[in-house]
């Protein structure tokens, strides 16, 4: 310190840093043991050799990644071609997750806006209603959804009963069923952050826009949405990421044909038929993809934040 501050000030500063580190320690320990260590383990496993009964042999190998990206024929000695099977599964997963995100946004934004514009004393009730499904385990909810959607289920019985359909829709075991399952599972994750953003929104801005000749739609597009954008991005991330790795909805509602990444990875670690390095490699590819998407999504958000500072 150029000003020649007495030593006491610096002592206090280091003490403060020490206190801060001690207070942060539990967070670092939790983060380290449940996030960083498992990811590091997966990274290591993905470069090891597979053991046939499940597990790994501690020998460096690129085989897991090779198997993921390249097809070398039945005996492994053909010239390598791109392996489309897994990339296809990834591609379908991204589409499903993106669609579920858009659908959640389309339904979640008006819902959140509606709740945030209710009188303050009734908002808690609406939020409570949104979170009620979370009192029941996701597995049970997904199975229930299958019962609702199956050919002899209430939905089809109703549609056939009122004469709208001659034969049941046959939704179960299609991409549509997976889509409905994902949308249903993660919708509240879209509603809550957008609600928080809309609740903080200064509605005088909407009045100002109307005063300056903007119609309601233009006001929504040019003023409301940009102002609550951080909430929208948070909601999209919270729906997209778990949808991408989901395995319950694809397994139970999509059947064998509509495999998603989550199911593919889950399979590799189940029983003795699995392939741990391959599962780990697929996880790493998924993780990389999610990170790239997050960085892409967070960037405009960060820029808006800087502008406001």
């Amino acid at each position: 310190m150029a000003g020649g501050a007495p030593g006491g000030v610096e002592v206090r500063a280091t003490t403060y840093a020490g206190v801060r580190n001690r207070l942060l320690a539990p967070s670092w320990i939790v983060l380290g043991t449940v996030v960083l260590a498992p990811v590091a383990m997966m990274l290591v496993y993905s470069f090891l050799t597979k053991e046939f009964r499940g597990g790994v042999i501690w020998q460096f190998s690129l085989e897991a990644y090779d198997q993921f990206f390249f097809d070398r024929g039945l005996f492994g000695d053909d010239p390598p071609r791109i392996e489309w099977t897994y990339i296809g599964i990834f591609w379908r997963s991204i589409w499903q997750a993106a669609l579920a995100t858009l659908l959640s946004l389309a339904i979640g934004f008006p819902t959140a806006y509606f709740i945030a514009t209710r009188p303050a004393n009734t908002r808690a009730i609406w939020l409570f209603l949104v979170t009620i499904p979370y009192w029941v385990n996701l597995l049970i909810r997904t199975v229930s959804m299958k019962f609702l959607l199956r050919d002899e289920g209430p939905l089809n019985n109703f549609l056939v009963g009122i004469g709208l359909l001659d034969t049941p829709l046959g939704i179960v075991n299609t991409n549509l069923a997976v889509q409905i399952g994902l949308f249903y599972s993660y919708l509240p994750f879209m509603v809550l952050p957008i609600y928080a953003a809309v609740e903080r929104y200064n509605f005088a801005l909407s009045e100002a826009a109307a005063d300056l000749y903007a119609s309601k739609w233009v006001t929504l597009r040019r003023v409301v949405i940009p102002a609550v954008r951080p909430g929208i991005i948070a909601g999209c991330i919270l729906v997209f990421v778990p949808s991408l790795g989901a395995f319950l909805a694809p397994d139970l509602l999509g059947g064998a044909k509509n495999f998603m990444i989550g199911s593919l990875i889950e399979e590799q670690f189940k029983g003795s038929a699995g392939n741990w390095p391959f599962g780990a490699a697929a996880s790493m590819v998924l993780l990389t993809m999610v990170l790239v998407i997050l960085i892409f999504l967070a960037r405009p958000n960060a820029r808006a934040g800087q502008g406001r500072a």
Partner: protein
Amino acid sequence: MEADTIAIDVRDAVKRYGTFTALERLSLAIQDNEFFTLLGPSGCGKTTLLRMIAGFEEVTEGEIYLFGREIDQLPPHARPVNTVFQNYALFPHMTVLENVMFGLEMKGRDRQEAQARAGQMLELVQLSGFAGRKPAQLSGGQQQRVALARALAPEPRVLLLDEPLSALDLKLRQAMRSELKSIQRETGITFIFVTHDQEEALTMSDRIAVMSAGRLQQLGDARDIYERPHNTFVADFIGETNLFEAEVLAADPNGGVSCRLKNGLTVEARSERPCAMGDRVHLSLRPERLALVAADAGNGEWPGTVRETIFIGTDTQTVVALSGGLELTVRTQNARRDQAAPQVGDAVAVAGDPGAARVLED
């Protein structure tokens, strides 16, 4: 005046929220080109009236006309009026220039034209160098100017200003007063200005509507409402005054009224309305029209004792206790140093110039 020079015509407007009446049957005609102020304490209905003109509040009853055209059923974006909001309500994600251009774009001006016009507006409010900034990077006073430029840019027929200066500090507020006034003169746009600050109202307005409890109390220019307040509310709210209840002893046809206060003192007052002997009336005496004189002058002065003196820079306020528990505030300029300042406890007498006391009309 021709009917077409009335900018805003409010006819029998009523606003109710459930059982609460925010605005009681109010009629008001605001001239084109006028700097018109709605003045009153918070909750008097002035902002409600402004928001009804802007279209943010529906009228419960009555009509509002803009240059002869009924607008009270139109949505805000269809009314050719613009508003400067109390906390500016600038769009935080847009630059200053984009904020000012917004209304022009919405009116369908092409981008180049809108940009040129927005540039002119920023020049008008002396913010030309700030076009690329975000509102959060500006001071309160600068944000206020952007809000003004944004509202003026689409060339509204009437500009509505909702306590636009209340968030600024005193110096800035005073500077903005004269600036607002000169912008109003330059642009020729009708300004409707809402404030609770009487000094703002008195210094800027062509006409002032004093409001209280959802009612119009008095309408007139600054001198009118200051010197000829209609009722106790206006007399008390505008400036400072001494209010007394009195009984009329005699009244002449020219408006001269002789009154007796509760403590028996007699006061010669002026009245705008006819009075009859025995009427109970309210009197208003402005402190600056009273003077302290030597206690023994003996010509209609009121004897009393100095209770308190307050030095307020240019003036000194002296509170004088009269007989019968009445008190009177006298304001004297400190420039007049011809007599020693009275001390607390001194015996003094108070004299008023002719017409200092006014009979209020309510």
